[in-house]
């Protein structure tokens, strides 16, 4: 039996063990109705306005990867958590923990990327903090960003709001970010380089909400991939989810690398994609506006919420079979043999 006296790498993986730690330690300690919703961001009512508030910490290694760096992730990640609440992101804070010896030029490149990402997203970085720790006490650079945004009237986005019959939309191709990181880490080179898809999704969500104010759920499938996000929504909403393998968009080089290593794209992280649960009579309208956005060109419907098998995600496979799509337990690992 795994003794629970130590924190293990799996506790940071975003899957079952992470959720258990939150349920067993964080929720009881902090205990309030806002936190217990466990959405991507907290939704608060202050002085008649509805605010979304979110935080995230970035410890990715490698710090620089095809398609961006940790700075891009740090800005886009929190912007996206706010956008997933249906909010228009406004302001971010930035906390830096730097390892002594980290190259100043690397830091400059990361800061420049953060400024560029903030500008693209239309948010302002309004406060921050910098700490330096001795060599070995941190791995190069850790970044925390927190953000606030405004939620408009009539928008009620929540992982608990999915309804049977909802169409499930994805904004583009799966697994680009996770496989870009892996290809960099493993020094794998391809004719068509695999790049991270890190991007701010708030302009896309704003467009989608103009086409349909009553979108039920947004989720950006980061750690744990699409499979984990769908499982979270299924459980929090008490619905079943049915997806179709032949509708999942995956770029050929990404599919190729997944095959090579034995990875399932459904479990690989994305940093510039979103899932949406949309009432079925609005899904075509929403899809149409998505495809007009540069970040939604490959948007498609991948499945639907159903009343049967609540809390479970089931996939119809390419050959017409069926299998359960479970939540990620530990880290996904390449095949040995």
């Amino acid at each position, binding site marked *: *039996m*795994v*003794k629970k006296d*130590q*924190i*293990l*790498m*799996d506790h940071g993986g975003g899957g*079952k*063990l992470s959720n*258990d730690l939150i349920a067993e330690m964080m929720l009881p300690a902090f205990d309030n109705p806002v936190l217990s919703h466990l959405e991507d961001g907290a939704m608060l009512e202050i002085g008649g306005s509805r605010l979304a508030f979110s935080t995230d910490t970035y410890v990715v290694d490698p710090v620089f990867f095809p398609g961006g760096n940790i700075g891009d992730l740090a800005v886009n990640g929190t912007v996206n958590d706010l956008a997933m609440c249906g909010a228009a992101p406004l302001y971010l804070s930035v906390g830096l923990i730097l390892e002594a010896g980290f190259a100043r030029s690397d830091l400059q490149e990361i800061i420049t990327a953060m400024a560029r990402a903030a500008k693209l997203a239309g948010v302002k970085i309004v406060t921050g903090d910098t700490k330096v720790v001795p060599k070995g006490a941190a791995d190069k650079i850790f970044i925390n960003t927190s953000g606030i945004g405004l939620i408009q009237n009539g928008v009620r986005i929540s992982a608990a709001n999915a309804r049977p019959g909802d169409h499930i939309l994805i904004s583009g191709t799966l697994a680009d970010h996770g496989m870009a990181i892996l290809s960099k880490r*493993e020094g794998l080179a391809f004719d068509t380089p695999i790049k991270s898809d890190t991007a701010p999704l708030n302009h896309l969500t704003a467009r989608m909400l103009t086409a349909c104010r009553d979108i039920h759920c947004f989720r950006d499938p980061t750690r744990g991939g699409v499979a984990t996000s769908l499982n979270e929504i299924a459980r929090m909403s008490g619905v079943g989810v049915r997806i179709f393998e*032949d509708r999942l968009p995956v770029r050929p080089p990404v*599919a190729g690398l997944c*095959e090579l*290593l*034995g990875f*399932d794209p459904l479990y690989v992280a994305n940093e510039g994609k979103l899932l949406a649960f949309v009432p079925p009579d609005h899904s075509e309208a929403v899809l149409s506006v998505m495809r007009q956005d540069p970040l939604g060109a490959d948007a498609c419907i991948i499945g639907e919420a159903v009343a049967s098998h609540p809390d*479970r995600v089931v*996939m*119809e*496979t*390419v*050959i*017409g*079979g*069926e*299998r*359960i799509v*479970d939540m990620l*337990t*530990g*880290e*996904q*690992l*390449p*095949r*040995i*043999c």
Partner: protein
Amino acid sequence: MKYVEEYRDPHLACDLIHRIAAMGAPPMRVMEVCGTHTVSIFRSGIRSLLPSTLSLISGPGCPVCVTDQREIDAAIALAGLDNVILTTFGDLMRVPGTISSLQKKQAAGSDIRIVYSTSDALDIARRHPDRQVVFLGVGFETTIPTVAASVLTATEAGISNFFVYCAHKCMPPALDTLMADPETGIDGFLLPGHVSAIIGTEAYLPFFEKYRIPCVVAGFEPVDILQAVLRLSEMIQAEAPQLENAYPRAVRSEGNPAALKIIREVFEPCDAIWRGIGRIPGSGFRFREKYRRYDAEGHFQINVPAAVMPRGCACGDILTGKKLPSDCPLYKTRCTPVNPVGPCMVSSEGTCAAYFKYSG
């Protein structure tokens, strides 16, 4: 041809499924002995489409699952030595040993690093000449050539701080053990595609001649597997056993001569203990005299506790196809992917983990 999409063609797959169902064959038990087959069969949804009379049984094909408790304990002991960097495939991190696990040992401060291949381990040895780097060698014949190649590279480059703890095993002797046990009740074998790419179909001839049981070497895409299952059903029904290669795009009768040559250069066969099965003669590998300096077991003094198998764990019966995961009293109760008791639940290719993940 891209060799992926074509072998996932839904029309081809449907046609094969109909032909299998239309045969109306009596109940039959077909065993696969490859972790990648276990996972592919589930992931593709084939299990949900085959007639209930056809049982696809998972055998001892998961290299992590058949790694003996003592081998896990030895790896944990090696990781605890001063100045040692233990390098391992990720799947082994969470396997519970008698007292601890590699993951817990890492959390307690041991230098244990996940690598994707032996050459990564060799690179670590090059970068840390003052440390002793041990690679935990687990895997069947698919993996062994890469280990042999790294040992040859280390010899050429004069790298003296690189060692291998050799827990590798080979498949054909295990097939013999399975057939010699009257309780396993197998009617045909789906033979492993990757292993066969290395050893060739010829390697199965002695086994086939001895038992005259239908055997088909299969690839991993849905159409590959269904094609092989159809051929096995036909052979079983007609009582006309053959040894067939249904994966000719990757497997030749002579295998991969270059890979076989370097395996034989570096290693020689020995007996090995397979978890839950016991000693299988000639199923393991040890370093030949010339390369024995790379053998971690000979080089390091380690204290390995007496292996204690967890009570109630049915991994052994599950690995030999005598029980299904649901027959194990610990399955989904005490033993889950988050809290595994045995390696069949830890490894991503383990039978219990696959059943849990894909069928609930």
